[in-house]
């Protein structure tokens, strides 16, 4: 049995003149919890649709759960970004229908739908029509539809969309549980701090190309921290000028963020700050996924505009 849940090998896809996915290769080990990120129109959905064999690549090959993607369809759960529910269908019936489509027997689909409705605190909506539900409830029903058949591979596109914090936490817990059961989870979102909290590994795709594929730890190591957070003691002030600091900004709690020049050693700057006056705290801020995302996407845009080629960052 292969250790890969998904393997893409030089996958390429065009729609007319649009080159949606360009020579993408990656490997997702079984049991991973992976964030699949990218700006709008980057090629995420096309890649996901190819993984699910909704569409096929022009070139390259895709292996899903050790075989053909088509054969693995019943072992994949997919939560699309936009809610896809039959408005007039009753919730329970909809879930059983999806279960049947995913190869479950009538009884198994019934039992599983009922169990998950209980788990998601939706016991009372079984007989309600989908159109009668709130946006958050619809999202939860659709989430159940994606996991009802206990798939080995789960692909969630914006799973927390429309959920209040309590329900978001409930879904977060369930995703962690599913991961703990050894299922592979690919998680696509624009809310990067959620991906940062949940995912072990991040892939970033932009304009059809994979521009980042690394663990969170690796990303934080790779992307040099360029911001120092400092909180002077009451009454103390920072020096008006600090070598190596490009700009500074006030934080809400009265501290400062110091944004450093390129190629400046942050530890030297921290040393200078401490020497200049008493501080309550000082720390080197680790790069967030937002920082990395903006940096990479902006740099690629800049690269395209200038017609120059920056070194690749794909690991």
């Amino acid at each position: 049995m292969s250790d890969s849940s998904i393997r893409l090998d030089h996958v390429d896809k065009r729609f007319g003149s649009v080159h949606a996915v360009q020579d993408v290769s990656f490997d997702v080990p079984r049991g991973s919890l992976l964030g699949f990120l990218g700006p709008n129109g980057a090629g995420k959905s096309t890649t996901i649709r190819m993984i699910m064999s909704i569409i096929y690549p022009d070139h390259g090959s895709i292996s899903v759960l050790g075989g053909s993607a088509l054969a693995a369809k019943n072992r994949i759960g997919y939560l699309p970004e936009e809610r896809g529910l039959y408005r007039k269908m009753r919730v329970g019936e909809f879930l059983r229908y999806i279960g049947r489509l995913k190869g479950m027997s009538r009884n198994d689909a019934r039992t599983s739908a009922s169990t998950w409705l209980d788990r998601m605190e939706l016991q009372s909506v079984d007989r309600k029509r989908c159109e009668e539900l709130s946006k958050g409830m619809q999202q939860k029903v659709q989430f159940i539809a994606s996991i009802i058949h206990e798939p080995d591979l789960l692909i969630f596109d914006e799973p927390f969309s429309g959920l209040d914090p309590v329900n978001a936490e409930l879904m977060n817990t369930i995703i962690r549980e599913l991961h703990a059961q050894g299922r592979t989870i690919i998680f696509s979102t624009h809310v990067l701090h959620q991906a940062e909290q949940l995912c072990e590994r991040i892939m970033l795709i932009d304009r059809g190309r994979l521009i980042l594929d690394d663990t969170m730890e690796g990303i934080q190591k790779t992307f040099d921290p360029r911001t120092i957070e400092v909180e002077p003691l009451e009454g103390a002030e920072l020096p008006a000028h600090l070598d190596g600091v490009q700009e500074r900004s006030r934080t809400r709690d009265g501290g400062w963020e110091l944004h450093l020049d390129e190629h400046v050693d942050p530890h030297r700057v921290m040393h200078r700050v401490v020497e200049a006056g008493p501080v309550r705290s000082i720390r080197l801020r680790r790069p967030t996924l937002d920082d990395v995302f903006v940096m990479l996407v902006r740099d690629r845009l800049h690269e395209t505009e200038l017609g120059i080629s920056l070194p690749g960052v794909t690991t």
Partner: protein
Amino acid sequence: MNRITPITWREFKYTALTKAFIIGSIIVPIFIFPLLIVLPVLFAPRLDPLQGTLVIIGSDAVVQQASDLAHEEQRKSGTARQLEEALLDMPDSIKNAASDPMLGNPMTSSELEYDLQVEAGTIAELDACKQRVRDHDLIAVVVLTDELLKAEPTREQNQFEMFVRPGLSPSHLDFVNDLLADSVVEVRVQHSGMNYAAMRAMMRRPGVITKRLQEGGGEVREYEWAKRLIPIAFMILVWIATFTSGNYLLTTTIEEKSNKVMEVLLSAASPMEIMSGKIIGQAFVSLITLFMYGGLGIIALIALSQADLIPLEMIVYLLLFFIMAYFMIASIMASVGSAVSDLHDAQSLIGPAMIVLILPMILWIPISESPNGSLAVVTSYIPPLIPFVMILRVTASGDPVPLWQIAIALVEGFAAVVVMMWMCARIFRVGVLMQGKAPSPFQLIKWIRYR
């Protein structure tokens, strides 16, 4: 196949087991036949009696004749007489229904109650008479010329003027017109020294009682109108059954796209499975419509003792060409439904196809009158038209269609079904993922060629 079955069932359930379908396609047809009998009663005119005086200027003989005719009992208006003549060739059951006193005697109810006085006038009194007509003192004043009463009047001479009061109903006017025309003709005949009543009896065209000899012995009354109507009835049956379901297929596909549920379905089943499930599901809906309307038609023929007008092979052809027509229409509707995001866009794509498919409706009479004519033969080999034209041909009462032509139409038609379904699958596969502007027909061709 295990994925197609639930899709088929859902498609069928959410179309056929809905209140709208049950009422529209099952309950309404069941009530159509009783309504056909009851409606004439409901719509039968309840006319006011025609009372008053008619002044005729120019001929005392016509005055006398009109007065005599006006005092005939049960004189019918022209419309009532036309209906009575039309009924002569109808089956007894329809005749009985039309004149059943329990149903309000719908045909004869157009008979008019009247109390009409006819007076002579002079041309000098015309203006005064016109004023009396305006004042509703007279029903009408009529001016006859001498030329009108000649034995052989020219076209220009064979007319007269009549001034009627405002608000005279069409039925009253119809009655007065007939009364005057009959009176003028009778006076002409009398002037020629002939007996009008005898002559009218001689001039009455004989009716033909056609009897059809049945294959197994026996004979039944042949009704020409029924033989003319059977081809178009069969074609409309196929048309209604296929287009009703085709339309459902179109709207449910568009709905699944606009609801974004298609994305969920595609994660569970292939586009081919979804399309197949939907088309098969709607095929059952279409069959219900076919059996419902077809069954009622057959029951009606049995009630009229005309069941032998539809031999068994005609039913077999109906089923074969219905299947062919359904899959052709379904492939068009599923393709368009998958390619667009709303019904408005769908109309612009379906329009050209509908123009072609409506041709058999326009060509119904020439094809059914001459089922082996060049027009019929040529159009029955043009794929989208095959089932509709062939059902007209095989049910027409003229020369039987050669078997080899039926065989070619069947082979070519079902080959076209395979090609159309293949093209539909290609378009469906791409179309269901597309959102936004509707594609042009040329883009659809491009989609067929996508890998």
